[in-house]
């Protein structure tokens, strides 16, 4: 009985133990660059970027139960906001990040309102988010204001510039920027889950009609989740542009981006604060491992040399395996093992 209760209740609970754990992890992440350089640092930076997107997705898909297959919409809005504001209006990416986040939140509110207004739920809602993202991709590809499908290059200023979030000599600083943004997202999640808002969201996720009958306004709390989720996912998009110095409609709004965003929290554990972090870590290591394998395969796998698509195959297989064998993700598996040990 006790273990059953634990399994049902645990995804919602976020005890002070978890918060302390998060604090420790963030400190560890902050000192990680001391031991990394060059390529390792890039991998870590990208992993944190995925963790940020995943944390954003998790607010809506995990806690509020509104599965999104179109988070590329928010990511792309963030990315293009930074790129356009910088290249056309010479505004600092910091301003771009904020504006991009707000625009994405606004877009989320608008599309979310339309969707929820017409009672789109479950798979229908997922399809709607997908359609909105595709729509943005097509619009971006045909809008000459943002260079159509050619995309936007961010000019390199050279040297280190905190105002432009460009670091030529100390790539380490980029790492700290994304860590800072991730901490913002994590702190917001902790606040959300512990506050009344989060409880309402989880109630709506578990049974929307019951929650509504108890006086919770589903529309309002679903929209709050969408707006927060959009905001933080857009931050990752803005960071992406300043890090890779290039964006085009497919990189911003493509269906693959949406998949990449939801992959981490699902592998890690949907609706848990650890999920996106664990998922980003695991998948980054696996991705690097396959890439290394393809670069220099062992003798018996020689035919894999330089082959494209192996990491995609692996990610697809992982997604399938996770859904079949561990639908609650790595975090869920760890919890089950621990629950068994405690018994």
């Amino acid at each position: 009985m006790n273990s059953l209760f634990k399994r049902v209740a645990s995804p919602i609970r976020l005890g002070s133990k978890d918060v302390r754990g998060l604090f420790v992890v963030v400190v560890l992440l902050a000192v990680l660059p001391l031991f990394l350089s060059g390529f390792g640092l890039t991998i870590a930076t990208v992993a944190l970027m995925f963790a940020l997107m995943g944390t954003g997705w998790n607010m809506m898909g995990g806690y509020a139960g509104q599965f999104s297959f179109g988070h590329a919409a928010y990511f792309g809005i963030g990315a293009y906001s930074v790129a356009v504001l910088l290249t056309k209006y010479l505004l600092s990416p910091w301003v771009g990040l904020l504006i991009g986040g707000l625009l994405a939140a606004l877009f989320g509110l608008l599309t979310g309102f339309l969707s929820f207004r017409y009672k789109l739920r479950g798979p229908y809602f997922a399809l709607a988010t997908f359609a909105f993202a595709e729509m943005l991709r097509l619009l971006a590809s045909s809008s000459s204001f943002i260079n159509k499908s050619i995309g936007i290059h961010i000019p390199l200023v050279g040297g280190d510039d905190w105002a432009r979030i460009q670091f030529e000599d100390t790539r380490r600083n980029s790492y700290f920027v994304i860590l800072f943004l991730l901490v913002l997202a994590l702190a917001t999640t902790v606040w959300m889950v512990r506050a009344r808002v989060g409880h309402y969201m989880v109630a709506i996720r578990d049974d929307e009609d019951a929650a509504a009958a108890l006086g919770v306004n589903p529309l309002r709390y679903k929209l709050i989740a969408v707006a927060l989720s959009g905001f933080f996912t857009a931050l990752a998009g803005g960071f992406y542009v300043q890090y890779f110095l290039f964006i085009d409609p497919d990189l911003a709004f493509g269906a693959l981006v949406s998949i990449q965003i939801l992959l981490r929290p699902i592998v890690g554990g949907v609706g848990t604060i650890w999920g996106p972090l664990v998922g980003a870590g695991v998948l980054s290591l696996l991705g690097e491992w396959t890439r290394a394998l393809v670069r220099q395969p062992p003798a018996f796998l020689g035919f894999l040399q330089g082959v494209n698509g192996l990491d995609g195959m692996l990610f697809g297989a992982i997604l399938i395996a996770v859904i079949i064998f561990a639908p609650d993700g790595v975090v869920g598996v760890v919890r089950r093992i621990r629950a068994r040990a405690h018994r």
Partner: protein
Amino acid sequence: MTETNVATRGRSGSRNSRIALVVFGVAALALLAWVTGWWESHHTIFAQVMVSGLLIGSVYSLVSMGLSLVFGVLDIINFAHGALMSVAMYVAFVLARSYGVDPYLSLLVTIPLMFIIGVFVQATIINPVMDAPLHSQLLLTLGLSLFIQNLLLVLFTGTPRSIELPYASGSLGLGLVTLDFPFRLFGAVVTLPKAIAFIVSLLLAGALFLLLQRTRLGTAIRAAAQDPEGAELVGIDVRRVYLVTFGIGAASVGAAGSLILPFFFVSPTAGETFNIIAFVVVVLGGMGSIRGALAGGFLIGLTQELTQLFVPGSSKLIGVFALFILVLLLRPEGLFGSRT
């Protein structure tokens, strides 16, 4: 119409008024075009748009019927539908390129092969999670699609390929009449591969329709769609029905893959566009409605061509997605579906 709606129960009362509204709208637009003289200057290109739209629409219908069937019976939005289509395209491509098999003859391979692959996929990875929440199955097909696409990338690289049909332009004797391809219909160009795709798609769609309506298997499929427990009670092996259904869904894209090969590029993501369009068609026609998918395919074919006519320089899909979002928001049960 209830007997064809595999997913929906009950029927809609206002069907006639809806048809009347559509007819009235089309008539009003036609009148406007005629009065303003737009018709005078545009009728050739308009004919081309209509013909092209209907030709490609038939393929969309075929692809969408498979997707709709899977949705209606298994309650799964199959994100791997397009990836399976890419597989079929590569099978037909390899047969044509390496063994000189005519792409239309390869239908005899792709349809049964894709059926078997579909059954295998359902048996090994989807059946185990049939009782899991909806999004699990959705993600599963997403993972499958990612896997298949990248497998194709590993096997064939991402370079788009195509084949030439040696007899694409020439004449075709049909007893009394001889058709020169590409021939003209009301001033619109019709190429041979598209004409064949149109006819064969319609035939296959009709066959699928009859299969669902007139056979014991079809009855079992519809029963399992309406009420799995009830079907189980009267002795239908629902799990097996699921296998067959997913197989039929895959077979429909198998056929489509062979049919479009002569006028389409093959790449690992070639089927993706069709997958996306099939989503639109299925939502438009009403999830699970076979008749809706048939009609929706043509409607989307026309929409995409009309988009190009009225919004030149943009992607064909913009109009399609605009329509999609509109329908999703205003009539999520689809134009031909009924509220449940």
